């Protein structure tokens, strides 16, 4: 029994922490998030050399051969720093490649991902809503001339910087993922920042796009749900670090800010809210760690554990973001001050891979299905 990290994982955490402190502190984050491409290629190459891009890729495919518990450490620290770049999206893409595609595709792409030469993203949903297969409605039309997609995939993470997409569609009664090359000129894509400028998004548009030459993989509903769950765990892992940063910044402010002759952190109206933030963060941290462990070690528990983690984290971090700005008073409302960057991140994180409404409903629904209540 050991619900903690190994010394190696703690070393990895220190390494990520040092790298981000040295190379990607908040002034640098602000510079990058205003840039056109939204990430720094130099950092990406360094991260490849450090092995973080191939963390969950097998050594035979050029990776490090670790698992999601190790990844959580990296994601937590990236969240803490608001690291701007397509790490999480490429990671979800990588997980899908490993889970779903054939070994030829894996041999073609995984080494490139580990080396930092290939980035990818998932394009699963095509109508606004929850991460649910019902929201994959794009239908492939097969004719004598090929297999054609017409429609769009909005809100594709890091759409502008990806080199490949895995696009979900339906054909007859089945679901498929098509591996599309982002540089195919007939694939139309747009990209933009979100309210959280460290997180980029975009839209893929298919105008009778022939995908008959693209690798295509039939997937079960269960496999797609697993990708949704993995994404939820990834986002929630970033939320841990980001929420801890909010608590640290706000605690320091409460220690330094003097009103009525005392540091405001002496007053229970302030200190109790900070204590509640600590309670919530500690708790969704436990839920996320466990969910990350289930991805590789207890797959049948993943759906429930991922939803518990993402639901708790979504409600808690959203409230933490708002209250942290409020506890700062007017200065928290300025562009210059960093706390607002985290408020924006909390809103991005909540919306990404399902909010608390969705995940709580999913937990109860699955319980009803399995127990017949």
């Amino acid at each position, binding site marked *: *029994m*050991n*619900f*903690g*990290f190994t010394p190696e994982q703690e070393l990895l955490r220190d390494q990520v922490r040092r790298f981000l402190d040295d190379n990607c502190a908040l002034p640098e984050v602000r510079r990058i998030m205003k840039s056109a491409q939204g990430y720094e290629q130099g950092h990406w190459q360094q991260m490849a050399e450090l092995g973080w891009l191939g963390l969950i890729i097998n050594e035979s495919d050029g990776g490090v051969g670790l698992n999601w*518990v190790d990844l959580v450490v990296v994601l937590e620290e990236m969240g803490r720093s608001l690291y701007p770049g397509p790490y999480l999206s490429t990671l979800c893409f990588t997980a899908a490649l490993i889970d779903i595609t054939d070994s030829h595709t894996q041999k073609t792409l995984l080494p490139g991902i580990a080396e930092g030469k290939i980035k990818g993203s998932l394009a699963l949903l095509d109508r606004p809503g929850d991460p649910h297969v019902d929201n994959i409605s794009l239908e492939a039309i097969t004719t004598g001339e090929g297999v054609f997609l017409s429609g769009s995939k909005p809100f594709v993470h890091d759409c502008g910087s990806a080199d490949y997409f895995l696009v979900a569609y339906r054909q007859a009664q089945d679901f498929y993922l098509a591996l599309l090359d982002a540089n195919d000129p007939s694939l139309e894509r747009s990209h933009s920042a979100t309210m959280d400028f460290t997180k980029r998004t975009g839209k893929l548009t298919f105008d009778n796009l022939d995908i008959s030459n693209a690798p295509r993989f039939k997937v079960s509903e269960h496999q797609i749900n697993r990708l949704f769950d993995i994404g939820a765990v990834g986002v929630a892992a970033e939320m841990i670090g980001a929420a801890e940063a909010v*608590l640290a910044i706000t*605690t320091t402010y*409460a*220690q330094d800010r003097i009103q009525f002759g*005392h*540091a405001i*952190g*002496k*007053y*229970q109206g*302030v*200190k*109790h809210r*900070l*204590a*509640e933030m*600590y*309670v919530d963060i*500690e*708790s*969704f941290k*436990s*839920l996320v*760690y*466990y969910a990350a*462990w289930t991805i590789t*070690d207890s797959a049948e528990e993943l759906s429930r554990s991922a939803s*518990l983690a993402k*639901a*708790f984290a979504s*409600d808690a971090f959203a409230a933490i973001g708002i209250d942290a700005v409020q506890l700062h008073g007017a200065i928290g409302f300025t562009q210059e001050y960093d706390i607002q960057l985290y408020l924006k991140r909390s809103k991005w994180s909540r919306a990404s891979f399902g909010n*608390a*409404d969705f*995940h*709580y*409903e999913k*937990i*109860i*629904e699955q*319980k*009803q299905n399995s127990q017949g*209540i």
Partner: protein
Amino acid sequence: MDFEYTQSEQNFRSEVRQFLDENLPAATDKGPVFMKHWLKKVREKRWVGFSWPKSVGGGGGNIMEQVILKEEMSARKAPPLGTCMMGLAWVGPGIIQYGTEEQKERFLPDILDSKYHWCTGYSEPNVGSDLAALQCKATRDRDEYIINGTKIWTSLAPFASWISMLVRTDNFGETDNKHDGITALLVDLSTQGIDIKPIENMAGGKVFAQIFFDNVRVPIKNRLGEEGNGWAVTISSLANERSSIGEVAGLYTKLEKLTDLLSTSKWNGQAAITDKKIRRTLGRFEAKIEAMRLNGLRYLTKQIKGEPLSSETSVNKLHRAELEVEMGDFAVEKLGEAGLQLRNQEDAVRTGYWATDSLNWPTVVIGGGTPNIQKNIIAERILGLPKD
């Protein structure tokens, strides 16, 4: 991370399961005859006081064995391992750490044998959260202390034979050195001059009391630890933190009951559980209970590594306090006016279980430190915010 158990841990789990198969009948009748047999059996296994050293009659179970024993007992909803709750949880560990050999021989076997109840005397009418300001005093008269004062909200006092209590033996009326001059005494509640007045709580129970001490003479051999060192004695026994495994199992059982209630209760002609908001709330309860379970496992991991636990245990106390209040209140709200009917009242739902539950939470929420105090602890000791 690894959630595996070692071979010897698995063997111990099998041993517990086998014992339960043999000694815990499925039948609902667990009356006094059964309880007497049960207590004798678990005592023979040395599972009463399982965490206590073997030298004092305990089980000497290591931390993982303690966890496994609790898990298995909770899973089968087994009766308690010994009925002297206060003695096992607080008084016994204090005596083991600070008691004289004579005190150990006199008190510990009785606690393990569930002979009588103990209670603990901390709060006073004007002393609650600020416990160190206590005023109940004891003065020395040769080889005796003479206690004058009162203790209140003393749980189990109406049924207890002994009290482990804090009295002031020095620094009367001081505010600066209030932690000094406190002494812990073990007092026979049948001593002359003691008057126990049960207090009825809002749920109708009479489990706590006010105790009046009028020139109560206690031999100094009943002092626990040194004179004036009572604060340290208390803190270390409060620091004897229990893992939250028992609580988590209890809360999961309660959530099952609540889910079952809402699945079978109709509201506007529909099963209540079809309502989106109700489902969301049930999900939120589940997330909080699961977070408690997993927080507990993280703290357990620290303990296994030999790192002492400190203020982080306030996290689960706060969750539990919230859940105990909210779950009962939620049930009663969703039942409408039927939820207000107590046992024996007309149209009571599930014999008034939820109605009573919605009034009983202060036992858990206030006893052992209010939520406000837990938040102070986290804010000051973990986050480093200034004391107020």
